[in-house]
């Protein structure tokens, strides 16, 4: 395969993208939703990597039905750790693009191509999904304010101007993925990731994506109290790294 295969920006999913993009799904106790999410991803992409993060339910078994690869953490290590495992595995398998995708079905598979197209076109190395550039269905207002606060936090602490700092849908070129090393195991990895993106010096873009807030994804999401814990965890991580 030549290094400069052509990725036209117009057609959503070229055969090259289908083969070269590895979709990483970190899943912890997502048994009820995972099979459907993975099946949908597999229709468009050949390489779907599920990292089962020590789930207590049948997440791994259900993931095996459709996923290309299933990696299992023997004990729960948190979403940041699971994503890093998936990224390293994808790079080892020759991924040219790495995409992170939430397991609870809140993202739309169509949005992946929108994230990949500027990277494939060489416009940037990192594309971050933003629900505030796009539309979101049924976003609870408490969630909206917590996320806005997170954006403000990102502007002050990470010194990056983003419209949505904590969206699980992200795409990386291979060289960007190689520079990412998530060390904060739990949810604070989202802020750590932004630090690393900024430090990498690689160009990034925000791309509008649509989030589906279903009863399931809201229940599985962060509580406000959880968000406060994340902030503390992230700041401690900055001090004691």
């Amino acid at each position, binding site marked *: 395969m030549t290094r400069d295969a052509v990725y036209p920006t117009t057609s959503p999913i070229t055969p090259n993208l289908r083969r070269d993009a590895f979709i990483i799904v970190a899943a912890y106790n997502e048994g009820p939703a995972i099979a459907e999410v993975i099946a949908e991803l597999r229709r468009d992409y050949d390489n779907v990597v599920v990292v089962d993060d020590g789930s207590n339910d049948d997440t791994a078994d259900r993931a095996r039905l459709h996923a290309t690869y299933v990696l*299992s953490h023997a004990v729960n290590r948190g979403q940041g750790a699971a994503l890093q495992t998936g990224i390293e595995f994808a790079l080892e398998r020759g991924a040219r693009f790495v995409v992170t995708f939430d397991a609870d079905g809140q993202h739309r598979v169509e949005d992946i191509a929108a994230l990949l197209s500027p990277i494939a076109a060489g416009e940037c190395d990192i594309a971050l999904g933003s629900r505030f550039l796009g539309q979101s269905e049924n976003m609870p207002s408490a969630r909206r304010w917590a996320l806005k606060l997170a954006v403000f936090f990102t502007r002050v602490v990470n010194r990056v101007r983003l419209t949505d700092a904590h969206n699980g849908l992200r795409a990386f070129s291979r060289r960007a993925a190689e520079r990412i090393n998530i060390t904060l195991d739990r949810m604070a990895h989202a802020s750590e990731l932004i630090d690393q993106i900024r430090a990498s010096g690689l160009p990034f873009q925000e791309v509008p994506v649509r989030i589906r807030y279903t009863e399931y994804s809201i229940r599985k999401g962060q509580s406000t109290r959880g968000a406060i814990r994340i902030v503390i965890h992230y700041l401690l991580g900055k001090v004691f790294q």
Partner: protein
Amino acid sequence: MSLNLFQVLALIVLAALLVVTVVAAARGWASRREAAAWSALWLIAAIVVLWPGFLQAVARALGIGRGADLLLYCTVVVMMVGFLMVYVRLRRLRREMTLLVRHLAMRDAFVNPDRSRQA
């Protein structure tokens, strides 16, 4: 010199601790350096129990009113440093655990059999 009941009990406990420390070092459960540090602590405690005036004198030299206050301040500082050390060590342990778990997950990756039919 006559000892009061507290002094007798405290000295018995300290002597027992010293014996445990020496035995631990002899059997290789603790390093010599660790054993020496703990032994020194027990000996200092014994001195303070036998001659309370010693602690009082040190406290006064530092401008602290009572020996008991000096003891309290020292305890707080030692415990805080202890907590910090445990916290840092715990973080490192978690980090190492993650790397181990990742290594195993990647080594034992499940590859879907229908993967071969594609491409």
